[in-house]
């Protein structure tokens, strides 16, 4: 793909990932994206297993890392969005945060250099799990009347329900899971394309023996955007998780 003097890789490089395990299977073909998801499972498992072996009053090593993560999710997400009764959702929220963060951060890790969440699969699966969770939480704690409370919010003049109820149905039951998934997916895909663009630009500028000022500027831009994407990886994991907590909190306490 030629753009001026710069050759860009085709978009298929971002979308099509060949399988290297179970190649013949439609459902279990294992590619680089699957490997990234696997790391999103494996790394937290190893960290928490090693952390559980630690003992003593003062945390050390992996225990420090694990407790830091748990403390962060508890104070910044659970307590902020749900309250004390949200602690029972710590396993889900911790898993979401770590799985998404590790699926994002591979964007800046050599060899991977691709965020797993720049593919729609994980964001969609996670958004559907969250969708099923908050609806079941709402029905479990408030009965089937929870659905009615969502669709027919109290305090609205009755004629307005003609407008409000379809809007609430669309926004809560159709758009919410879609926006939840697409927000993560689109941010990570855009960040990845940005890094690819600057990387290709750097190669082109260095190959063309351009002015040293231009080379330094381009490379500095690549470094800056790489650092920016590290922050985006963290923020997107946080946003997805805290939105989950907010949805669960709204389902637990719909009158709030």
């Amino acid at each position, binding site marked *: *793909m*030629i*753009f001026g003097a710069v050759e*860009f890789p*085709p*978009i*298929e490089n*971002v*979308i*099509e990932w060949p*399988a290297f395990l179970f190649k013949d*299977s*439609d*459902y*279990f*073909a*294992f*590619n680089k*994206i*699957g490997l990234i*998801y*696997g790391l*999103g*499972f494996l790394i*937290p*498992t190893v960290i*928490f*297993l090693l*952390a*559980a072996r*630690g003992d003593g*009053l003062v*945390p050390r090593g992996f*225990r420090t890392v*694990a*407790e830091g993560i*748990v*403390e962060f999710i508890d104070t910044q997400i659970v307590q902020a969005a749900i309250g004390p009764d949200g602690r029972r959702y*710590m*396993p*889900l929220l*911790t*898993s979401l945060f*770590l*799985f998404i963060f590790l699926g994002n951060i591979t964007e800046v890790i050599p060899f991977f250099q691709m965020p797993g969440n720049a*593919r*729609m*699969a*994980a964001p*969609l*699966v*996670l958004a559907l*799990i969250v969708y099923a969770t908050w609806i079941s939480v709402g029905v479990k704690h408030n009965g089937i009347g929870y659905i009615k409370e969502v669709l027919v919010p109290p305090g609205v003049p009755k004629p307005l329900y003609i407008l409000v109820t379809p809007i609430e149905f669309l926004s809560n039951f159709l758009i919410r899971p879609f926006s939840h998934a*697409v927000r993560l*997916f689109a941010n990570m*895909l855009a960040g990845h*394309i940005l890094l690819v*663009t600057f990387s290709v630009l750097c190669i082109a500028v260095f190959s063309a023996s351009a002015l040293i000022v231009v080379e330094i500027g381009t490379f500095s831009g690549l470094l800056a955007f790489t650092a920016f994407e590290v922050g985006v990886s963290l923020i997107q994991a946080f946003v997805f998780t805290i939105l989950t907590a907010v949805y669960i909190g709204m389902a637990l306490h719909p009158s709030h």
Partner: protein
Amino acid sequence: MNLMLVLAAESTEDPPNPVIPEVNEIVWAAIFFIALWMLMKYVLLPPIQRAMENRSSTIQGDRDAADAATSALGSTRRDYEASLAAARSEASDIIAAARGRADEQRAAKQAEADAEIAELRRSAQAEIDEARASALRGMRGDVASLAVGAAGVVLGRELDAGSQQSVIDQALAAD
């Protein structure tokens, strides 16, 4: 945006839609996430949370013990200060009582001494008066003898002291 437009324009075939997920990736995402979730719920998170809760309760217990010790220290200090204040008050009362008794004793001694002095003064005065009267009596006899003698010399005859006594007494009384 330009990049996407160029990419789109140069491609002869429709590129795969990046929004449409691959089934195999959905399967692996679901397997790995649900496995992590279940492990996190039943295996990974409970020991970490237990350790954190144990630490919190230990710290809270130590803090409560420290608060209790501080409270006991305050109580002991209050008791000590109350005892000290009572002792000071008692000492002050004792000193005041002693001072009162000392004042009474001093006043009594002073009165006794004053009475003794007055008595001494009275007896001394009586002795002085007696001596004075005695001296006057002695002097009066001598003066009468001298006066009678002197008058006899002047008159050229001897005078009787007894008969002249009344005149001498009138003269001395006139002085």
